[in-house]
């Protein structure tokens, strides 16, 4: 895979796919835990092109989707204050809280702003010293170094009108929570490439050994995913369970030590609620006590807000892979990207939005167009799509 043409060449995709078919002798269930990977898998139809019996479960890998409803409600309560400029990654704006969302709140006059980076939020704080600027610090290990550096910068430069609403989650505890569940069907994982770019993969080694599951650090492009799936199935077929690295061009075993150190200087690991899953012990970051003055929950006293999910939404079962969007009565009817009930339909990385975007289960003409389709396989009579 050295040249561009090869990467874009559907022939190579078909070659890897043929190799997957050649080595597969048993049914296997794999899970990816990254919304970006879910998006590519569904959009390119990779899951439908796999051998019969090989199943991809789309795990809780979209940070927007796993942010619990009550954190959204806390964001709404803070953003509604006249003294606050509320800043966020764009994805969070349409995540429905229990009564409204940030975008609707903005339309009613709240000062809500999309930022590309938390450092941009810090700039807003510097430019508006008389206002309180709050950043919605969501995400997995990928955004944690950015958020940690921003809080450290606010402390170092004495920017006291800045604070963060933290909703940080970690991949390995979610994996072990799924593996510990009696309903678990996952036999191998594709680990998220950019989470591992920062964290390395040493923390996955004890998981692979304890649960006897192969874990393959995998990139985001179609050929990355096919190669990652191939490596995981090869391990399963050979009875191995190791951590392997498919995404060698961006990931090393140690990750980026400076980023890891900064994260642990600002955050500590604690329990965290996951939307649709519930609380998982030691599964997220919270601010260390020495940074408590940058904690928006304390600053605006919203700790006591607690809320429940929309009754028709099965986001929890979709996030854990127990169900697919096609099992949901609201999918495509009550719930669509324009009017989402649950977070997996809101974020482009969410499983429901990925299914909707690919037009799955919606009839012809629905969904968005696909600019490229490396793998296009019409569902045969024995395929899972036909069985639905």
């Amino acid at each position, binding site marked *: 895979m050295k040249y561009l043409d090869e990467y874009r060449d559907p022939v190579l995709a078909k070659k890897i796919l043929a190799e997957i078919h050649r080595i597969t002798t048993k049914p296997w269930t794999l899970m990816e835990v990254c919304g970006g990977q879910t998006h590519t898998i569904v959009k390119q139809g990779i899951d439908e092109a796999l051998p019969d019996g090989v199943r991809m479960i789309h795990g809780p890998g979209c940070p927007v989707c796993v942010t619990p409803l009550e954190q959204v409600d806390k964001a709404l309560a803070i953003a509604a204050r006249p003294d606050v400029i509320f800043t966020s990654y764009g994805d969070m704006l349409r995540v429905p809280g229990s009564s409204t969302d940030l975008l609707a709140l903005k339309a009613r006059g709240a000062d809500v702003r999309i930022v590309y980076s938390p450092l941009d939020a810090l700039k807003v704080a510097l430019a508006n010293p008389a206002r309180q600027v709050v950043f919605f610090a969501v995400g997995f290990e990928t955004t944690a170094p950015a958020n940690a550096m921003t809080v450290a910068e606010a402390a170092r430069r004495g920017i006291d009108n800045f604070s963060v609403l933290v909703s940080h989650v970690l991949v390995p505890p979610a994996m072990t929570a799924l593996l510990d569940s009696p309903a678990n069907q996952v036999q191998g994982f594709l680990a998220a490439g950019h989470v591992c770019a920062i964290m390395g993969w040493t923390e996955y080694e004890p998981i692979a050994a304890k649960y006897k599951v192969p874990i393959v650090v995998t990139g985001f492009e179609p050929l990355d995913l096919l190669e990652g799936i191939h490596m995981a199935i090869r391990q399963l077929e050979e009875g191995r369970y190791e951590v392997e690295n498919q995404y060698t*061009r961006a990931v090393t075993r140690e990750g980026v030590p400076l980023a890891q150190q900064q994260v642990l200087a600002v955050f500590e690991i604690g329990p965290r609620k996951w939307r649709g899953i519930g609380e998982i012990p030691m599964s997220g970051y919270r601010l260390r006590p020495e940074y408590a003055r940058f904690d928006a929950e304390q600053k605006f006293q919203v700790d006591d807000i607690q809320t429940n999910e929309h009754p028709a939404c099965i986001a929890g079962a979709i996030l854990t892979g127990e169900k697919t969007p096609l099992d949901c009565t609201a999918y495509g009817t009550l719930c669509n990207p324009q009017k989402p009930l649950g977070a997996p339909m809101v974020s482009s990385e969410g499983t429901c939005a990925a299914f909707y975007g690919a037009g799955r289960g919606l009839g012809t003409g629905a969904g968005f167009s696909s600019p490229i389709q490396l793998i296009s396989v019409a569902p045969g009579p024995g395929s899972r799509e036909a069985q639905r």
Partner: protein
Amino acid sequence: MCLGIPGRITEIRDEAGLLMGKVDFGGVRKDACLAYLPEVQLGDYVIVHVGFAISRVDEAEALKTLEILAEMGVMEPELMTMGEGMDGLAIVSDDAPGALTFNPDLPSPTMGGAVS
């Protein structure tokens, strides 16, 4: 917000004690924090994630990824941000503060093609 985009470092500077730089993503240049990869040089390719360089990558690999992302139409929403007050969709290049490049063909960041 999990999409990291490779780009080429075109400027390295100290900004109030923080190692910052400018990174070119196929024509759009954005500020990025380089503090986690202090060894990078001008011209190096890095993967940038929410404004932070998180990994140095081989040039050929980076160019390959850029082309694929461009073709898949997922890069622009990632770079998309809005001016203060969010009056319109825009890709804001940090080269020209205040000058917005408006592209009506882009998906709205809140409609499927979300900034993520």
